[in-house]
């Protein structure tokens, strides 16, 4: 089998996941998209493992690890999303904007008084 098939499929899956991460509003859908990206990587790992005929089968082992880590990640991620939802009543990512820059503070330099330095000079004399 040509190596390009799994590789290109992995790329396209990855980019689909990427689009989902960037475009979806609901945090849980974002997590799903992350899963898609992880799976794309897994496909790559398996394909290259088979292609290279690795005696250690590092690709497959890593795929297993990735799946385990994905499970952990989804657990933690869901816990975070739930906590946010409890606090904010919403799990929409683009509404969680606490890190946004606040409104423009007042201009620090006030209108300069041209008489003040002259008075100072007079006092010094």
């Amino acid at each position, binding site marked *: 089998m040509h190596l390009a098939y799994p590789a290109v499929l992995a790329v396209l899956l990855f980019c689909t996941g990427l689009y989902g991460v960037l475009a979806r509003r609901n945090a849980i859908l974002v997590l799903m998209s992350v899963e898609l990206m992880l799976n794309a990587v897994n496909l790559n790992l*398996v394909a290259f493992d088979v292609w290279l005929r690795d005696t250690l089968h590092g690709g497959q082992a890593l795929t297993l690890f990735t799946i385990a880590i994905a499970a*952990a990640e989804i657990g933690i991620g869901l816990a975070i999303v739930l906590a946010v939802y409890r606090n904010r009543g919403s799990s929409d990512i683009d509404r969680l904007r606490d890190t946004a820059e606040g409104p423009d503070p007042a201009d620090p330099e006030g209108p300069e008084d041209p008489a003040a330095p002259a008075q100072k000079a007079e006092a010094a004399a």
Partner: protein
Amino acid sequence: MSATLAQAALTAPQGFLSPSGVEIAFLLVGIATLGAAVMTVTTRQLVHAALWLVVALGGLAVEYLLLTAEFIAWVQVLIYVGSIVVLLLFGLMLTKAPIGRSPDADSGNRWVALTVAVAAAGTLVWVVVDAFRTSWIDLDGPAQGSTKVSGEILFRHWVLPFEALSVLLLAALVGAIVLSRKSAPDDTPGEASAAAAPGGRSAAAPGEPSAAAPPETESR
């Protein structure tokens, strides 16, 4: 999907006018998988997205089988389809996701996201095709990902990372518990469901919402 077709058209003239049966199967399943993935990220019904995800992950499991990685395929089905998607569904329910079409499932970032994704896809496809257009996978001989082989390598060569991973999973477990505990048990709506299964909480954090899950799945 059109990208896949274009890729197929691109690779066809380079000596693949007579693809083998495995390749054809791979291609077809791949198209289905990709379509499911695209539906996952574009559908306006949130629960449908999870279901499309099941299709995509299952398709991937078939691809693993085609690549002779049996064990991985079964693990994929078990863990992804069996637990992760279920978890995600629980998450959707617990956050009171709307049922039916929701008009605002995509954020305003959508066109930027599309641009970035298409550009990334273009770049990566170009790079990958450019790099591997003369590489073939030899699928003959004994299966490389049979359960026997996987068990041998995993417990012979990868036993230490494997154990370390178990520690990671434990940590994730504890972290999930800590995160989903409520500091003041009287102010949030999710309190009742969490309090309904106090005994199950110590056993497994992801299982925590299961007490409230069955009625909601049924309602769907």
